[in-house]
């Protein structure tokens, strides 16, 4: 399960590119800072592998262990 902090995200798209389950896509809404940011479109498929967090330059993604 991942949490994306829209105030930190700058919309580079690395997490979307490298997610092995392809469960992220760029959202249609802008953050308060004016960036588009990724949204999780299939929470159930997330395996908490944390590759999105590994590639995030801004440490905007936090990953909780899958129960």
């Amino acid at each position: 399960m991942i949490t994306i902090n829209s105030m930190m995200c700058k919309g580079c798209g690395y997490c979307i590119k490298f997610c092995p389950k392809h469960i992220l896509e760029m959202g249609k809404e802008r953050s308060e800072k004016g960036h588009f940011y990724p949204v999780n479109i299939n929470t159930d498929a997330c395996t908490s592998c944390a590759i999105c967090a590994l590639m995030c330059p801004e440490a905007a993604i936090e990953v909780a262990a899958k129960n």
Partner: protein
Amino acid sequence: MPEYKRPSSLMPMATGYCPGCMHALATRLVADVIDELNQADNAINVVSVGCSALNLYSWHGDVIGAAHGRAPAVATGIKRCLPERLVFTYQGDGDLAAIGLAEIMSAANRGENFTVVFANNQTYGMTGGQMAPTTLIGQKTTTTRFGRDPQTTGYPLKMCELISVLEAPVFVARYALNSPKGVSDAKKGIKKAFEMQLAGKGFTFVELLTNCPTNWGMSPLDTLEYMNTNTIPYFQPGVYKDAEAAK
């Protein structure tokens, strides 16, 4: 299952870097490793000049700013006075490989017991994308408008190769941050360098191949492929010297 939390060594705010800039990624990796080693209160970050120095705004710990290229000289003084502290410099390629070349080579040759984290994005980012010593042959910058020509500007400097032939350094390695494997390996490399420093082994040098979407003139995602086809074939990632493995 793995989990990830934002490292405590970073301030709770976005960095000052452009979207997709791997300086932010490199800074975060260093912060991750410092948290893993429980050194958040013990680490001293020495920055000099360039985009690399922007990480002092997001660093939640001791930071000192050195003159352009002189971070290894300042780090030498700090480490000799405070040998128990974890001291590292965070420098870019314009800073380390151009104006700071004498300082880095001297510090490496003396085998000073600190770590250098060298972010190589092949350009001067902060001043507007001029040619750096590490700019690739044929790469267009604001001062090489038709691509870098070795006839007039020489060849890109390979810092890992230069430093690895010196006697004193104990760990010299290069990693590329454009893939999860590269980032994961880089994290292990930085951790190993810090552990060797804490064990008092000597000079450690970690080069991270990074990007500059703004001055390369491409999107962050396009820089990943550019690095695969251009940067990595010239600047080969790998461990160039490891005193522990040689024993």
